[in-house]
């Protein structure tokens, strides 16, 4: 099986600050990879590099056999939640539809086939009733579900999700992570899922990439989420506690993080 994504010796640094160094991993079709690490560890930067929007300092990123460059219709991207300009004369339906064919030239005329595909994508995120609501009137969580539908409707080979659960309530966290996992298993899409909490997605994760201080660990959840592994990565004492199926990381101090414990 050929890898969907191959990262070979990828290094990113700005001036003297190394964001991450010598990353090496491959992602296979259908594989669900969680990308975690503290703020400033370069998780979003890694996604941007895969999208070809951030130049590597050295190394290569190959997507479907080609050097990653300026996006692809085989990628579904779910950005971090942020407020949207409410002026746009677009409804939920129109936004999801752009995820299907927004890259094509011409006017957005809607065929019955397109309409069916959009309504199906909306039904999956539990948003059928929202189809005709203007985007400007959505709450943060509703907008995030629209973004998920927009990213999945094109049946991408690779899903890049940047903290997609951040604006969602618990119920929709489950809906959205289940949906992304389902896409991975049934359609064979590879997933890179940026998060700082493994627990909502622990059932789906095949492997974890943990970024810290320019270094990384990769492996299954059980391999990476160990006190000795993370202590070595951070260079300081870290406790990984398992409690009723939840994983809690204690003492993951970070320059950009001033909490005593970090829920991973």
């Amino acid at each position, binding site marked *: 099986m050929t890898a969907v994504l191959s990262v070979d010796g990828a290094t990113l640094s700005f001036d003297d600050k190394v964001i991450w160094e010598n990353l090496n991993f491959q992602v296979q079709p259908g594989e669900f990879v969680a990308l975690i690490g503290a703020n400033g560890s370069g998780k979003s930067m890694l996604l941007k590099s895969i999208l070809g929007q951030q130049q590597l300092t050295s190394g290569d990123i190959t997507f479907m056999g080609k050097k990653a460059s300026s*996006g692809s219709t085989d990628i579904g991207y779910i950005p971090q939640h942020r407020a949207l300009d409410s002026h*746009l004369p*677009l*409804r939920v339906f129109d936004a999801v539809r752009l995820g299907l064919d927004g*890259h094509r*030239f*011409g006017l*957005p005329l809607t065929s019955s086939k397109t309409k069916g595909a959009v309504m199906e994508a909306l039904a999956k995120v539990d948003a059928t009733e929202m189809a005709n609501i203007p985007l400007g009137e959505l709450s943060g969580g509703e907008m995030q579900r629209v973004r998920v539908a927009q*990213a999945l409707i094109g049946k991408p080979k690779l899903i890049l999700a940047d903290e997609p659960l951040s604006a969602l309530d618990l119920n929709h966290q489950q809906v959205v992570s289940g949906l992304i996992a389902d896409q991975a298993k049934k359609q064979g899409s590879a997933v890179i899922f940026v998060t700082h909490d493994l627990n909502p997605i622990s059932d789906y994760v095949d492997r974890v990439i943990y970024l810290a201080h320019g270094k990384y660990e990769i492996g299954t959840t059980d391999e990476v989420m160990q006190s000795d592994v993370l202590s070595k990565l951070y260079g300081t004492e870290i406790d990984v506690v398992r409690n009723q199926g939840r994983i809690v990381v204690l003492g993951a101090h970070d320059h950009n993080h001033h909490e005593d414990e970090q829920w991973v």
Partner: protein
Amino acid sequence: MEFSDVFNFSDYDRLIPLVTNSLWAGALIALIGGLVGVFVMNRELSFAVHGISELSFAGAAIFLLIGFDVVLGSVVGSITAALIIALLGDKSKDRNSIVAVLMPFGLGLGILALALYPGRAANKFGLLTGQIVAVDDPKLASLAVISAIVLVVLFLIWRPLLFATLDVEVAAARGVKTKLLGIVFVLLLGLAVAGAVQVVGALLVLALLVTPAAAALRLSKSQLWVPVLSVLFAMVSMLGGILLALGGGLPISPYVTTISFLIYLIARGASWVIDKTAVKA
């Protein structure tokens, strides 16, 4: 000044044929202005429109002075401004300061050229405030070509441009050339401005490229109805303005801008009433 200077429709039937060209030109400009305006609003380019129109005016005035085609001068001026804004002003903040720097320079350059121009004063100010009987056949032909280019290219890039306007990161991730599209759109905007300057004058371009779209966005959030209403409002302002201007001895602009402004006020009022009723219901 008598009231009859503002409204006097005694010889109306004989005057209409004199402005047939202007009516056609007005309709073309209203069509492209109304459509381009929808993206101007959503890409926050209103201020850039003003900057482009001042350089368009400068180009037209300079070409008038040296005896070249005024429409061509207008196009050269606005394309130059559009390129500067597109290439230097990637972020909205940068763009505003670049426009603010360009605008007075363009206006000053244009006024200099007009001051040096030996022709009649009425022709001079037409470029700033609009003129109704100045559209001759060659000018109408150039406006038709400009409008055709804008219309064809805009319809071609409509969908990816909409995607890039909605969410530039997601569109780029799907392979949309967002930067290139942004530049192409600003160039189309430059062409539309150059056309509008010929009819309403440089100072009042916003009344055609921003006000109708702003009014339409008050009334609808539909991606079909906003452009349709925007074009309709631009048409009513433009053609209504020309027909009213014919009745008086005043320039066309006050009529066009007043109608356009009234439509905006009515749209705001209507959206306020609709919102209020919606809350009650």
